[in-house]
């Protein structure tokens, strides 16, 4: 009887081992998170009021960057939390320079997750927070560049202390992103539209983009000796009440996913 029990036990263990060995392995791939200031930052542009702007550095500090697989898809216009059937987060806080690499650079790699489950990541969230170290310490956004118009030149450094949280739907662009297959690499992008701040001379003046933009003229008016270095507290004094309020209102709209929209909470 004892021999029979031992024999049954051994056979059971062997059979379980065979079954477990046949179980499908988890399917994963590499998910990259990238930040993109677009050609506006990499190559510069002309503001709605005719200033030619070039950027030396555009530092953004990002944290709690998370990608989601949602069904039904998340609607950023409705706001609210992102309800997902799976999510992957990038650890840590990252300060990146959107102007890095020159005019033809790829979107900046913020970080990557090597064992992300496969699927379609069709939503993303992140926070822009004050940097604790590095060139933009104390600010969530630091824009460093030059602007020129009619022989005038202004060197500027605009610093933003406010913090923002973005919850975004699916990336909208030339191709879809976030479709991750086993053993492959896919990416998601956090896009920053700086034409929202300064406007764009290539867009009609009555376009919603230009109507809401501050332009660069107010900043030029606040410069002294061809130079403007200021944070939001300084700009509140230097700009007119309406221009400063326009800046406060437009900063949360920086975050996009390609041309796709995000819901923003500011702090």
């Amino acid at each position, binding site marked *: 009887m004892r021999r029979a029990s031992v024999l049954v036990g051994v056979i059971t263990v062997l059979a379980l081992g065979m079954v477990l060995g046949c179980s499908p392995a988890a399917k994963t791939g590499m998910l990259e998170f990238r930040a993109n200031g677009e050609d506006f930052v990499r190559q510069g542009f002309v503001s709605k009021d005719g200033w030619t702007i070039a950027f030396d550095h555009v530092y953004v500090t990002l944290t709690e960057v998370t990608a989601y697989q949602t*069904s039904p*898809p998340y609607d950023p216009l409705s706001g609210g939390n992102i309800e997902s059937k799976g999510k992957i987060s990038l650890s840590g806080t990252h300060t990146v320079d959107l102007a890095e690499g020159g005019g033809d650079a790829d979107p900046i790699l913020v970080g990557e997750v090597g064992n992300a489950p496969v699927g379609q990541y069709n939503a993303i969230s992140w926070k822009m927070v004050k940097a604790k170290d590095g060139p933009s310490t104390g600010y969530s956004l630091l824009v460093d560049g030059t602007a020129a118009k009619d022989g005038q030149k202004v060197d500027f450094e605009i610093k933003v202390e406010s913090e923002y949280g973005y919850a975004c739907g699916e990336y*909208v662009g030339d191709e*879809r992103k976030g479709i991750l297959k086993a053993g492959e690499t896919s990416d998601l992008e956090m896009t920053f539209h700086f034409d929202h701040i300064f406007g764009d001379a290539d867009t009609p003046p009555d376009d*919603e983009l230009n109507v809401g933009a501050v332009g660069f003229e107010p900043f030029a008016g606040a410069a002294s000796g061809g130079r403007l270095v200021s944070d939001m507290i300084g700009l509140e004094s230097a700009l007119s009440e309406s221009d400063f309020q326009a800046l406060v209102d437009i900063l949360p709209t920086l975050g996009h996913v390609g041309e796709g929209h995000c819901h923003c909470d500011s702090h």
Partner: protein
Amino acid sequence: MHRKLILLVALVIALSLPMVASAHGVKIDYKMDLAIEIRASYDTGSPMAGAQVVVYVPGDPSTPWLTGVCDEEGRFSFEPDASRPGTWDVQVRLAGHGAMIHIPIGDQLAATGTTGFSTLQIVLMGACVVWGFVGTALFFLRRRS
């Protein structure tokens, strides 16, 4: 019995003979075609005339199924494949503005189906295999005793 069988066969043959169609009869067929019309506009209400449209079928988010352009009113119409129920994704873009809309068509469960065996199925199959080995072993042990 033989007579009843002949009558039964005759009845079956009679019922199988095609009837002569009436020249004045009317036959009506119908089919339902689902057509989707989208209308894209800016936040101001202005239509996105000439916007580029890309339609994706459920289960294949990478490959455009249909492309087109919105008319002057920002409208675009298409007939989805009725054999592919699920969430159809439609992307609209124009001059730096864009959005994507997700349209549920047909059976919602098909849009989120998965291939392969579920965890429960794997566990049950595994249990059957294990019991098969155990049962066989017990059988031979009983015969021996």
